[in-house]
C-alpha cells in the first residue's frame, strides 16, 4: 500500500518554505523493534500540521525522533534524515535542539508535580541566556495567553487540573522561545469545551508568534479544523497526506478517522473488520 497523496507535501501546499523536514526515517527501539518504516513529512514556516493516526501508529515516536527524546528510550533513527532549515539535526541532543528552537510538549503533559506552576514555566527558560528581564517579559506573555495560569501561579502543579496542566506544559514550552513546537495529544483526557479553548489559544500563539506547530492527535476532527495540512500514520507509515480540507472530505478519512461515512455513522466493530480486510488485501 503506497502513500495516497492529495498534496505535494505541506510546504508546497501552504506556499511556505519547509522549516523542518523529516525525510523517509526509520526508527528502531532496542535495536530490534522496527516502529517507523519510512516516514516523511514537512512543517512549513508558520504552519500548523497535524499528524494523525490510531493508538500505536507511531505519532509519538515520530515526534520524539525529531526532538531526539528517542535516545533516552533506547530508540534510534536508523535511516533517513531530519533537517531544520536545511541543516541536519538528528545527532543533536534535546538541549541543543531546544536552543535551536525545536521543543516537544510531551503526551500526558508531564508537569513537574512538586514545582509551582510558575516554576514549571521558568524551567522552560532553562536554555536561555538573555537575563531575567526578558524572561520575566515572556512569563507575562504566557500569562496573557493563559490567564488561568496567572491565577494558579503559586500552586503546586501536581494539584492543578488536567486542563491547567496542559496549559502549563504548553506555556513552559513557549518560555523557550521556540520556532517549532511538537505538540503530542494535547486533547488527551480533556472535556471537549476545554480542548476547543486550548486549541484556540494554540492557534492564536501560532498566528501572533509565528511558531510552527506539529500536532499529533487521535482527535482527528478537532485537529483537522485547526491544522492546515495533515499526515495520516498507520503502523509506522504515512498512508495519506493532504490539505486539511481535502482530508476532511476524503471518504476513507471520514470512515476511519472521523467515524462518518456516506451511509452514516459506522460502528467501531464494522470499521475494525473492514480495516482488517483491507490490510489483508493490501
Amino acid at each position, binding site marked *: 500500500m503506497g502513500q495516497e497523496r492529495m498534496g505535494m507535501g505541506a510546504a508546497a501546499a501552504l506556499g511556505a518554505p519547509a522549516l523542518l523536514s523529516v525525510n523517509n526515517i526509520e526508527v528502531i527501539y532496542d535495536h530490534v523493534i522496527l516502529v517507523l518504516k519510512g516516514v516523511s513529512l514537512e512543517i512549513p514556516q508558520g504552519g500548523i500540521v497535524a499528524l494523525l493516526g490510531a493508538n500505536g501508529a507511531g505519532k509519538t515516536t515520530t515526534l520524539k525522533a525529531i*526532538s531526539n*527524546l528517542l535516545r*533516552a*528510550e*533506547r530508540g534510534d533513527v536508523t535511516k533517513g534524515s531530519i533537517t531544520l532549515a536545511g541543516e541536519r539535526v538528528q545527532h543533536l*541532543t*534535546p*538541549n541543543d*535542539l*531546544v*536552543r535551536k528552537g525545536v*521543543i*516537544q*510538549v*510531551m503526551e500526558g503533559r*508531564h*508537569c*513537574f*508535580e*512538586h*514545582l509551582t506552576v510558575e*516554576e*514549571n514555566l*521558568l*524551567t*522552560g527558560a*532553562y*536554555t536561555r541566556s538573555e537575563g531575567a528581564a526578558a524572561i520575566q517579559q515572556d512569563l507575562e506573555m504566557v500569562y496573557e495567553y493563559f490567564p488561568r495560569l496567572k491565577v494558579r501561579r503559586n500552586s*503546586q502543579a*501536581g*494539584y492543578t*487540573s488536567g486542563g491547567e496542566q496542559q496549559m502549563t506544559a504548553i506555556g*513552559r*514550552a513557549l518560555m*523557550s522561545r521556540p520556532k517549532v513546537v511538537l505538540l503530542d495529544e494535547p486533547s488527551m483526557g480533556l472535556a471537549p469545551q476545554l480542548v476547543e479553548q486550548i486549541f484556540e489559544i494554540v492557534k492564536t500563539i501560532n498566528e501572533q508568534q509565528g511558531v510552527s506547530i506539529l500536532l499529533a492527535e487521535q482527535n482527528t476532527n478537532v485537529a483537522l479544523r485547526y491544522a492546515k495540512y495533515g499526515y495520516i500514520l498507520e503502523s509506522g507509515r504515512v498512508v495519506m497526506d493532504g490539505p486539511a480540507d481535502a482530508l476532511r472530505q476524503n471518504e476513507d478519512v471520514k470512515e476511519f478517522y472521523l467515524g462518518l461515512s456516506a451511509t452514516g455513522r459506522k460502528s467501531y466493530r464494522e470499521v475494525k473488520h473492514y480495516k482488517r480486510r483491507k490490510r489483508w488485501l493490501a
Partner: protein
Amino acid sequence: MKPLHILTWLVGALVTIFAIGGLHWGLAQIGWISFFDWSFYFEVSAAGLLQGVMYSLVALGFVLIFKASGIFNFAQGSLVLFAALTMVGLMELFERDFGIRLHWVLAFILTVGVMVLVAIAIERLVLRPLVNQPPIILFMATIGIFYFVDGFGQALWGSDVKVLDIGMPIASAVSPLGVRMNVYDLIAAGVGAALVAGLGVFFQYTRIGRALRAVADDHQAALSVGIPLKTIWTIVWSVAGVVALVAGIMWGGKAGVQFSLALIALKALPVLILGGFTSIPGAIVGGLIIGYGEQVAENFIGLEIGGAIQDWFAYVLALVFLLFRPQGLFGERIIERV
C-alpha cells in the same frame, strides 16, 4: 518549609524531649531505672542532638543523589572518607614537599575541586554508560564505586589514621542555660545548619536549583525542555561531594581520619528510613532523632541492661518505622489526582 512550620516543629521537639525526660523520671520513681537526673538528661540530649547533626550531614548526601537520579548511592560513605583523606593529604603534602603550611581554607577549596573532578569522573565512567538501566544495577555500580574510591583514597594518601587540625577546640565546653555542651560539637552543628540553609536557598531560588528539582520530579520532562541531565547529575554529585567533605571534616576533626569514617554511611541508613529517602528536612530531623535517641537510650536504659545500645538502637528504631510508616516521616507525598 514555612517559618510557622519550623516553629511548630521546634515546639513539638521541645515538648517531646520533656515528655521523654518525664518518662525516664517516672521509670526512675518506680525503680525500673536506677538513676535519673534532669540536668544530666539535658546534657545527654544536647550531646545527642549535636551528634545527630553529623548523621544528618551524611544522610543529606544520600538524599541529594537519590532525589535527582533515583540512585541509592552506597558510595556516599567512601566519599566522606575520601574527601577528608584528600584534605589532610593535601595539607601534609604541601608541608612535606614544599615546606608550606597550607591554610585549611585553601586546602578546603582545593579539595572541593578534587570532589568536582570525582563527580565528573563518576558521571562519565559509570552513570553515563549505565543510563536507562534498572535501579538495582546502578546500586551495584555504587557499591563498586565505594570500594574503588575507598581503595584509591588509601592508595593515594596512605591508610594510617591521620589528624585533621583545622584549629578547632576539641575538648572545651560551654554551659548555656546550665547545660554543658562541647564547643566542637556546637560549631560542627552550626556549620551543618549553615550548609543546609545554603543548599535550601540554592535549590529554591536559583535556575540550576530549580532544574535540579525538575529533574528529581520527572527527568523525561526535564530533558524535553532542554535541561541536560548529564550536567545536572555532575552538579548533584559535586554537591554531594562537598557535603561529604564537610561531614568528613567534622567527623574526622574529632575522631581522626581513618577507614571507620566510610562506615558512618551505615549510620545514615536508619536516618534515611526515618526521614524518608527524598526529603532534605527528613534527613535533618531523622539525624537529630537518631542522635538524640541513641544517646538517651545508652545513658539511661543502657545502664540497666549492660550498655552497647548505641550500636543497634538506630536500626531497631528504623525497623519500627519500616513497619508503621515505610515512607518515613517526610517521605515525599505522592501526588495523585483523579
